[in-house]
């Protein structure tokens, strides 16, 4: 069975992700150093807060290299919320900031008309665009929990695995090779979210 490392880079409580993996019977731990990440077969990059602050902390903790190495070496990789956004080239949150540039595209703010509140907060549906192992057993249009004001606009639309609708379609998850990343929070999405986390650990 795989060993799942949840990257701790000082951005919030990671316990909820860890216990969600525990609930579905996977072996997960919170990795506090790049060396700990290297032991794992599966790597999770969570994240809450601001994009520049997260990039800064990833660099300061040395976890940025752990992320690159994990992905290059073909480990199964899961980005959650800001952990999805960080994978992209750049974000316009608090000015324009460079991201990890593992996936091409920009992270942009919702620009919506009256009646659409930002942050996009609550339960919204995912429209499944790709038949991928991560979404095995997940019915199309399932509700998952979101809380975010920015979303990624991938340059290559073929990596989009789900779309969601909030005053227009936006990318709610992407899938490329060994990377899956979702804008929503599977660890807060009850049974649907737990199933996605189970699927992740089951790969490989």
């Amino acid at each position, binding site marked *: 069975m795989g060993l799942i490392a949840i990257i701790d880079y000082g951005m919030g409580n990671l*316990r909820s992700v860890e*216990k969600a993996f525990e609930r579905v019977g996977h072996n997960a731990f919170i990795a506090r150093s790049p060396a700990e990440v290297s032991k794992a077969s599966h790597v999770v990059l969570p994240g809450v807060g*601001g994009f520049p602050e997260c990039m800064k902390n990833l660099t300061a903790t040395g976890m940025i290299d752990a992320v690159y190495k994990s992905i290059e070496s073909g480990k199964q990789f899961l980005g959650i919320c800001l952990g999805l956004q960080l994978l992209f080239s750049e974000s316009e949150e608090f000015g324009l900031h460079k991201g990890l540039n593992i996936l091409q595209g920009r992270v942009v703010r919702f620009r919506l008309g009256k009646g659409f509140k930002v*942050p996009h*907060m*609550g339960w919204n549906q995912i429209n499944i665009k790709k038949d991928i192992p991560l979404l095995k057993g997940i019915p199309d249009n399932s509700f998952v929990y979101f*809380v975010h004001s920015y979303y990624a606009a991938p340059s290559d639309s073929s990596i989009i695995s789900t779309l969601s609708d909030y005053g227009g379609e936006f990318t709610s998850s992407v899938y490329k090779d060994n990377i899956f990343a979702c804008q929503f929070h599977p660890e807060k*999405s009850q049974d649907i979210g737990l199933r996605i986390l189970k699927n992740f650990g089951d790969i490989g």
Partner: protein
Amino acid sequence: MLAKRIIPCLDVKEGRVVKGVSFVNLRDAGDPVEVARLYNDEGADEICFLDITASYEKRSILIDVVRNTAEQVFMPLTVGGGVGTLDDIRILLNAGADKVSINTAAVQNPEFVREASERFGSQCIVVAIDAKRVSPSSDNPPPLGTKLNSAPEKGGEKVGGIRWEVYIHGGRTPTDIDAVQWAKKMEEYSAGELLLTSMDKDGTRDGYDIDLTCTVSEEVSIPVIASGGAGTLGHLYEGLTAGKADAVLAASIFHYREYTIKEAKEYLKARGICVRI
């Protein structure tokens, strides 16, 4: 489509649910962890704990409750009551809360809201506003539920001459602050969401203050949770439609098992509201 949220709220005192009633399916209806798990199973969209523990020394009990709940419930958990410092927030988030709600401390120092949002992200900072109607002339208060003919004025301070005042300290202390202006200010200070409670309606079970909810919801571009007064499923519907709320919070109708969360959602869905079932 983004679903409207149904949020059951539990008042918690010294680690116990206030006014615990006999839940058929629970071993201990006074245990907030068990009640939270029941609501989770019924499909609540979030859960809210309001800590009303008076003694500061006993507040650590709440942290254990939050931790135990977060171990078992995989949905967002908001915790409020007595949150006054960045350290209070950090401790609650580390215990497993997803959001904290700030009330009195925000009024005493609005910068606190900004600091908290910058530090932890606005997604976890809820500002709770307790609002009470103020009539144009105190000699002649407009009766509650009065149909208002005029549309909200530009700027939103008044609806048909009615305004609302912010109260703090659990509703005991008036502040002379206009609730609609305050809501806008809290949005500027990076609050992620507003939990708007009508003090006039709270406990009456005759419906949310729709004028208040609608006025605030139209004036801000962050989500608004309607609170105070829900007594029927129709009230939930009203709060989400006429009140334009993004979410409705209710305590007693769920707490006393008059309706389950599931029944509430089926009712709303049948009336065309997008809910998660």
